[in-house]
């Protein structure tokens, strides 16, 4: 067994201790040393099968199995190979961590860009509008929409801590109290991520339009 590297030295010590116990028991029951040894070795199992099982219990194998499980779960691919033969059912409810992790991953780019816009772009845009003499009386309709996008950005910038705290609290309450929540968790978090992404996209578009409209006016003003 040692030559075939069936297991670690410690595991081999354990197997040896097991063999000795079994040989002792058989010899106490009246068996010869030789027969006792042969039977004990036979009972302990085939070296190749043991090698395979010990390899499965190794640290690297456990980590890689876990990693595979995480990747499959995130990708939404059913991973039947991990289920034991006695358990072929696969719950279609996505695990909690996967839902929140995906929700966060979809929100991170939008939130990053939005923060950048709120801190750097909006003040600059306000400055440009002021210099260009906005809002002109003729374009109030457009200006109202564009202005509200800027105001909304400013509002979120001021109260982001309060708002995100409220959302987290609501989610925590749902996780804690609601029994029906797990069923709707994925859909709700998905819709939230979609709506927030859309808001960021629309407000970016409005800022871009404002800049487009303000630029000619700025030139005109400069002349």
């Amino acid at each position, binding site marked *: 067994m040692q030559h075939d590297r069936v297991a670690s030295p410690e595991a081999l*010590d354990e197997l040896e*201790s*097991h063999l000795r116990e079994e040989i002792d028991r058989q010899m106490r029951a009246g068996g010869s040393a030789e027969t006792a040894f042969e039977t004990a070795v036979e*009972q302990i199992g085939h070296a190749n099968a043991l090698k395979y099982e010990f390899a499965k*219990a190794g640290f690297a194998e*456990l980590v890689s199995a876990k990693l595979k499980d995480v990747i499959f779960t995130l990708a939404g691919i059913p991973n039947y190979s991990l289920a034991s033969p*006695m358990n072929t059912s696969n719950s279609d409810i996505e695990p909690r961590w996967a839902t929140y992790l995906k929700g966060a991953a979809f929100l991170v780019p939008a939130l990053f860009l939005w923060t950048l816009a709120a801190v750097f772009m909006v003040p600059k845009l306000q400055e440009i509008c002021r210099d260009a003499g906005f809002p002109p009386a003729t374009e109030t309709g457009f200006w109202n929409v564009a202005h509200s996008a800027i105001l909304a950005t400013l509002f979120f910038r001021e109260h982001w801590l309060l708002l995100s705290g409220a959302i987290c609290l609501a989610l925590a309450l749902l996780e804690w109290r609601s029994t029906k929540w797990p069923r709707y968790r994925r859909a709700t978090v998905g819709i939230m991520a979609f709506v927030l992404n859309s808001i960021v996209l629309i407000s970016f578009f409005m800022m871009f339009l404002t800049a487009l409209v303000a630029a000619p006016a700025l030139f005109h003003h400069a002349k």
Partner: protein
Amino acid sequence: MYRRSMIRKELVAASAEPLILSLLENGESYGYAIIQEIKARSEGQLQWTDGMLYPVLHRLERRGWIRSRWKESETGRKRKYYSLKEDGRKAHKKQREQWLKVHSVLKGLWKEQYV
């Protein structure tokens, strides 16, 4: 002559973890003793290949469900003793509930059939 049949290997494999955890719930034990106890309790119907127990024990240890320590027995032989950790106790409780559920469903069905 009536002959007891062996429990099929799929069921043996599936029941290995709950059996080990249930045994360790009674206190620490070592591989050989665990095998002997299972053999005795199942009247020999639940046959493990002896060596196969150790990879399962090691896997449970890696998972953080059980811990092990080498100890010298009264005969002077070194044995590796395993005992349950808190996470293992929790896992055992969960597995126990599932097995009891399966048991109660089967029991209910058989009761209906033989009344």
